[in-house]
């Protein structure tokens, strides 16, 4: 992973990429699925992200860690333009999805291609089936006859099918917390997203439910690019291929998970992962 190593920033501000370097990844290495350069983000006058530059590799799990309020969730929400629903929020800089400028695409289109799972499981007060079918129906992705098949496929991918196949038309609220979160993953997967963003998906779950979701994530990276925000360092160490460390709105360091956790380049990263932070 030479590119990634090359990217690791020694300074507080990551070095900016040369455009050439960015658009022409070397052969044999993972393709950058999302390419963010010089991203600044503001809530009104308060700046939440400073000059973030990062390449998110395709078909890998990218973990984003950092203390709360460091901007990692805000960063995640720029990748599918969900930040736009917050009044007075503003992003400057460039984000590319497969080389296309994300800001010039249609927001609905972006959100279909870049799915999201939230911190608190948020199933709709509908049946399990209707929850998964929601995205398929509004986007009219599959024909009516194929709907059931598509729902089953998504539930299998989220490792939920065997638990719910006999109760597809029961309310989603009857499921346990962990099952609800996997239902939300299935719902996001149903529209075949190219990228799946997960915003601390296990923070409200018990260890067993968490283990199930982590296991599921390993399988998911074959289907899509995964970006996982977590404040649980062990979780990042367990599941992520590459990890980025955020602090006070800056991306301090970005490298393979092994390097980040064993030989971090930055003092701040080291302080954080060894618990000496603050």
């Amino acid at each position, binding site marked *: 992973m030479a590119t990634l190593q090359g990217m690791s920033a020694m300074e507080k501000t990551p070095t900016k990429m040369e455009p050439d370097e960015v658009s022409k990844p070397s052969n044999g290495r993972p393709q950058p699925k999302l390419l963010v350069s010089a991203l600044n983000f503001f809530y009104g006058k308060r700046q939440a992200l400073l000059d973030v530059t990062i390449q998110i590799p395709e078909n890998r799990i990218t973990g984003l860690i950092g203390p709360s309020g460091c901007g990692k969730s805000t960063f995640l929400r720029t990748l599918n333009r969900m930040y736009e629903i917050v009044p007075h929020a503003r992003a400057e800089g460039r984000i590319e999805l497969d080389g296309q400028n994300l800001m010039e695409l*249609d927001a*609905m*289109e972006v959100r279909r291609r870049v799915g999201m799972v939230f911190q608190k499981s948020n199933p709709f007060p509908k049946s399990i089936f209707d929850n998964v079918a929601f995205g398929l129906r*509004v986007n*009219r992705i599959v024909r009516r006859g194929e709907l059931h098949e598509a729902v089953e496929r998504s539930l299998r991918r989220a490792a939920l099918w065997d638990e719910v196949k006999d109760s597809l038309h029961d309310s989603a609220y009857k499921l346990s917390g962990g099952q609800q979160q996997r239902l939300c993953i299935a719902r996001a997967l149903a529209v075949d997203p190219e990228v799946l963003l997960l915003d601390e998906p296990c923070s409200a779950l018990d260890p067993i439910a968490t283990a199930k979701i982590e296991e599921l994530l390993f399988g998911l990276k074959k289907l899509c690019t995964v970006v996982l925000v977590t404040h649980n360092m062990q979780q990042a160490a367990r599941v992520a291929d590459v990890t980025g460390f955020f602090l006070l709105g800056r991306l301090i360091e970005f490298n393979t998970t092994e390097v980040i956790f064993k030989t971090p380049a930055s003092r701040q990263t080291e302080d954080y992962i060894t618990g000496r932070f603050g």
Partner: protein
Amino acid sequence: MSPRLVWRKSVSVMMLSLTGVCALAGVSVLLFILGYLLWYGGKYINWDFVTQLPKPVGETGGGMANAIVGSAKLLLLAALTGVPVGFFGGVYLSEFGGKTFAFLVRYTTDLLNGVPSIVMGIFAYTVVVLPMRHFSTLAGGLALGVMMIPIAVRSTEEFLRAIPTALREGALALGASKWKTIVKVVIPAAAGGIVTGIMLDLARVAGETAPLIFTSFNNRFWSSGWNQPIASLPVMIYTYALGPYDDWHRQAWAAGLILLLLVLAANIVARTVLARRSTAREM
């Protein structure tokens, strides 16, 4: 963009605009009512209208001085009967209420709030007018007073509850007894809100007509006592609007304007005070 996405986005914009039209429709009805009354009623309001008695049927001119004073007397009676029950009931619910009994009181209060005003009129009729054998100011005041109770109770309770527990504990810690704490600390702290709530309550019953038409009835002259029928603005508007004379209609518009302005002014003042209090509390 795919044609399907273009279609979905157009539907979105269209439907959301329609909801905006609905909201505008609601607001424009208010503006229309206010504008029409200002225009029509404003023309017929003059000094005579507020100082003179109604002229005998068929003659033009005259005013509704007796109805204005009558409405004030009825509201005074209503406040005297409704406010004590509402206020002390609210204090009970907020400060002393247990579980089951307080729940029962609260639920009954909500139900009483939903009783149609005309039914309150029947109640006042059966308990005051029937035994006395004639219409009276007292009966009208009682009907309005009972109508005031539910909102007086609930708003008093809400405002008392909003007083932080720390304030009570502070007073209790100084050795004050519970009722002294309530009287000297809790109620003064909530007084502004409670008074405002009662003002809104009065504004609501000030416009009530149905419970008055067969309790306080109407009177073309000054009422001679509390046990005599009395004129009131809402009943006058009702009678004059349905009457056959143009001059009556004009007077109905003028009376409508006066009533509307009084009710809206009370509402605007009270709501502004409440809004300011709640933002102050948030800060």
